[in-house]
């Protein structure tokens, strides 16, 4: 490379310098003023711009409106039912699970008869039915409110792009638009101000085709290695690379929202997914009740029922063998003699 500076590249000094492992390519040394005045300031500017954008987004987001009562009740009912379906099998014994299932899926038929029968475990036995009745009675009155960002924790379809409603869509697009506009403005500004010199060298080889894209304003240096790029490509690099950095520094709420929704969807269609513009409480509850009734077909073992077996392992008392003073007898036979019951109780005390 010659060492005479060409018009568009004032800052490039051409030093011949062999790269230590004796490669054939020659490395240019760039002026440290580029680093001080372009590379690092660009980085700082973009970090600040990103933070600004997120703060502005947070300010622009409308405060969550409280949801109508009916929807809140329906939603929490759906939440409980889905929890029952998904995992309660490990915490409840089979009879209680069954009782809950029956209670939740009970519904009122038109002639006043209650279908499904009641179970013992219904603290709000036919809660779903009550909610269904209310929903049907109120007709479509309350459902005119679009599904809004609600106060129910964890299921906030908050304003980002995952929200299905009108308002949600608007806010998501607003955020997107702001980002795009800002990106374009900055790109124009940067290519205007920092034009005409080499910024950095990307450490991997690029083909000739990229030359035109990455070396704007350096057309006369046709023999310059494509790895040396100009400011716009540095801008792109920084833009993509800082996403991870922002996730670390500020915690990306969008990412968490998206993943949270995915998990909830996996857990079995909790919140009715995107139900269109309105949350039809009655219909959702009805489908949920249908699903509950269907589940009964699967036979499953409940861990709680086997808990005693698992705990005791080998020492689980078998029905045929009745030892008078052995360790196997833990429960103290009702008809046991005094000696055996006192022996077992003393053993029990020693174990405690």
């Amino acid at each position, binding site marked *: 490379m010659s060492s005479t500076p060409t018009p568009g590249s004032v800052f490039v000094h051409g030093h011949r310098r062999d790269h230590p492992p004796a490669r054939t390519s020659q*490395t*240019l*040394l*760039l*002026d*440290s003023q*580029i*680093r001080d005045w372009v*590379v690092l300031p660009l*980085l700082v500017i973009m970090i600040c711009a990103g933070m600004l954008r997120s703060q502005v987004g947070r300010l622009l987001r409308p405060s969550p409106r409280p949801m109508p009562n009916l929807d809140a009740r329906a939603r929490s009912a759906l939440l409980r039912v889905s929890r029952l379906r*998904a*995992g309660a*099998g*490990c*915490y409840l014994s089979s009879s209680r699970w069954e009782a809950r299932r029956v209670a939740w899926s009970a519904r009122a038929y038109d002639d006043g008869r209650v279908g499904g029968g009641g179970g013992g475990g219904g603290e709000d036995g036919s809660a779903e039915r009550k909610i269904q009745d209310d929903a049907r009675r109120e007709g479509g009155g309350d459902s005119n409110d679009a599904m809004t960002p609600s106060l129910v924790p964890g299921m906030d379809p908050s304003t980002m792009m995952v929200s299905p409603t009108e308002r949600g869509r608007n806010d998501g697009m607003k955020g997107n638009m702001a980002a795009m506009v800002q990106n374009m403005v900055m790109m124009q500004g940067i290519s205007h101000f920092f034009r005409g010199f080499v910024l*950095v*060298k*990307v*450490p*991997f*080889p690029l083909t000739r085709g990229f030359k035109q894209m990455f070396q704007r304003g350096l057309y006369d240096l046709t023999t310059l290695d494509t790895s040396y790029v100009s400011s716009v490509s*540095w801008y792109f*690099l*920084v833009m*993509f*690379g*800082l*996403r*991870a*950095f922002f*996730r*670390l520094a500020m*915690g990306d709420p969008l*990412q*968490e929202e998206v*993943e*949270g929704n995915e*998990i*909830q969807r996996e*857990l079995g269609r909790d919140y009715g997914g995107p139900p269109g513009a309105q949350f039809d409480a009655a219909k959702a509850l009805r489908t949920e009740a249908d699903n509950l009734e269907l589940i009964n077909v*699967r036979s*499953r*073992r*409940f*861990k709680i029922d*086997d808990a005693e077996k698992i705990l005791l392992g080998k020492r689980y008392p078998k029905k045929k063998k009745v030892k008078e003073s052995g360790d196997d007898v833990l429960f103290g036979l009702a008809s046991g003699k005094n000696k055996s019951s006192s022996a077992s109780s003393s053993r029990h005390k020693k174990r405690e």
Partner: protein
Amino acid sequence: MIDPMADIDHASAAPEIDGAGGDGNQEVFDANAYKSNFAKMDKIRSFMGIASGCVAGVCGLTGLGGLVCFLALHISVNLSLLTFKMNFDLHSYSRESMFAFLTADLQKCAMSFMLFWTLFYGLVYLF
């Protein structure tokens, strides 16, 4: 170089309850634990991407060497997550396969790796 796992408390990997035992298809899946575990893993991986970029830049690796360095570091960090925090029990913490876990978030980390690689390579070797 800062240990990427310092100060990041991964101890709440514990509350995940493994219900996959004898219960048919149902699992007990605590969504909160799952979410928080994954948030932490995400943080660790992002940090790893940045740090490995710095390492590759300072060492002067170019081209293929840098790529190999990134892949090696990424996989080794995931392996050590697996070993030290999960005790090799992948299935009680997530539903993915081993390969999916080891190569998770590869693209996101790759972008930040490239940025910091370029930056540090330039700072050390070009300026």
